[in-house]
């Protein structure tokens, strides 16, 4: 069983060993903290666009940096690598389960009236869920390109990160946006 599985099994039980702080192993790349501090908000932002959840996005960002810490990706390519990894990891989370959706459903108690303010929040949340569902159905490369582009990466950065030509970034993003619209419309018309 994995370490994280144990943590899930015993939530709230903080592992003595993992609570050791100020003890980043010497084997971890020396520029990690510098890169982390520069890129963490952006990586969280990429994951948040996919997941529509700050907490989940921070989890994904942590997972991404853990993976990054074990690589020798040049510092100059770090941001692209991290953003792509965060997008993939977040999309994996989307596809691996409907946990949040089921939690949100379960959280609704029909016996309690919904106020207008809260209703707005519910609508917003439903929108996020629809978008996430649509995103998870896009071809992976399109989805990643779309998220990266809308996270502020330039065409050149998206091209480098996804090993595409800058010209084909526009094509990929365009197809992704068109597919996203179709997915959203299809979902809306089937409701």
């Amino acid at each position, binding site marked *: 069983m994995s370490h994280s599985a144990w943590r899930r099994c015993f939530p*709230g039980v903080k592992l003595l060993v993992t609570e050791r*702080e100020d003890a980043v192993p010497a084997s971890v790349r020396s520029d990690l903290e510098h890169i982390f501090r520069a890129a963490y908000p952006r990586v969280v932002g990429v994951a*948040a666009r996919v997941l529509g959840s700050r907490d989940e996005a921070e989890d994904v960002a942590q997972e991404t940096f853990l993976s990054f810490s074990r690589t020798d990706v040049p510092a100059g390519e770090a941001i692209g690598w991290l953003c792509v990894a965060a997008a993939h990891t977040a999309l994996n989370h989307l596809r691996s389960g409907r946990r949040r959706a089921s939690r949100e459903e379960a959280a609704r108690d029909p016996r309690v009236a919904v106020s207008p303010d809260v209703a707005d929040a519910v609508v917003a949340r439903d929108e996020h869920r629809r978008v996430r569902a649509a995103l998870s159905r896009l071809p992976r490369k399109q989805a990643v390109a*779309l998220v990266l582009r*809308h996270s502020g990466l330039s065409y050149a950065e998206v091209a480098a990160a996804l090993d595409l030509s800058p010209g084909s970034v526009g*094509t990929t993003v365009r197809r992704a946006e068109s597919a996203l619209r179709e997915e959203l419309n299809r979902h809306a018309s089937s409701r």
Partner: protein
Amino acid sequence: MRHPGDGTLRRLLDEPDGVADVDRDHVDECPECRSRMSAAADDALLAGSALTFDVPDVDVDEGWRRLSGSLAGARKPAAGRKFGLRSPVVAVVGVVALLGGASAAAAGDWFPIFKTEKVAPITVPQADLVQLPELQEFGTMTRDARPNVRTVDDARDAREITGLASPRINNLPDGVAGQPRFLVGDKLTGTFAFDRARTEQALGQRIPQPPAGMETSRFRMTAGPGLAAVWPGSSGAPALVIGRVVAPKAFSTGVPFETARDYLLSLPGLPASVAGQLKAFTKDGGTLPLIVKEDSETSFTTKVDGKPATVLTTEGGAISAVVWVDGGFINGVGGSLSAAEVLRVAAETQWTQ
């Protein structure tokens, strides 16, 4: 002239300088391309709107602390992988260990509001477990002091730093030998403040009126200090861990714990089965629930030194641990041992002041 491709039109929206002059000029003159570009702009706007999710004020310092902790925790000898099930032995230390904290997942955050005097298991299906709300969605949770777990020279140092008795066992289980190393951790404290608006936002619905004073109360939670003796196994991962930590306690600036607990448990989102089990606990507190996932571990209750204890065993019985609460301390024994072995060690351990 041929019409530019969709990709070129799309880039024209974002980075016109990246598009050749000849294509830009063509689009200016071509109604068909302008129409295509308008459709692309609409789709881009829709996608941009759909993917907007602001995350203001990302706490980089907290993120770095969390990553540092994970990196330190992930530092296991390669042999740990080789031996597969050996590495969870490290995790079994957790049974000995510290409770609470703002980032603890799901239900764990709820429980430090109980004063701990005994251990009782709660078994929930995995589906319910992930359904439990996270406390930070219901207010603010701050961690005021961290445990700073570290290795010390010997048992005497561990005792002096923590003020706790250290464990001694004369008859080690087969496969466990040598002198242990000692870990200590300082007291952990955190504070929770309930926020009704945030809770309603998280749950997406109105919630019942909180008890008077609930929203102005502060719940300070403490756990620790703690210590543990760790015997290395042949793989380098711990083969046996015996430890003790001062049990979690909670202090309220207003609403009594029991009132807060009952209210929190009544909120929609907590699985009815778990809420029911929690409500069954005595109102004067005194129970530390442990959540055990049904499908990969087994647990049973027994007694250690006459105190109620919970035994946890991984599927296949490779890893076992026993936890019991006695005199305000959570005690634990764990390792790559059978349930019978950890119970024998638990019963024979002497605690030296």
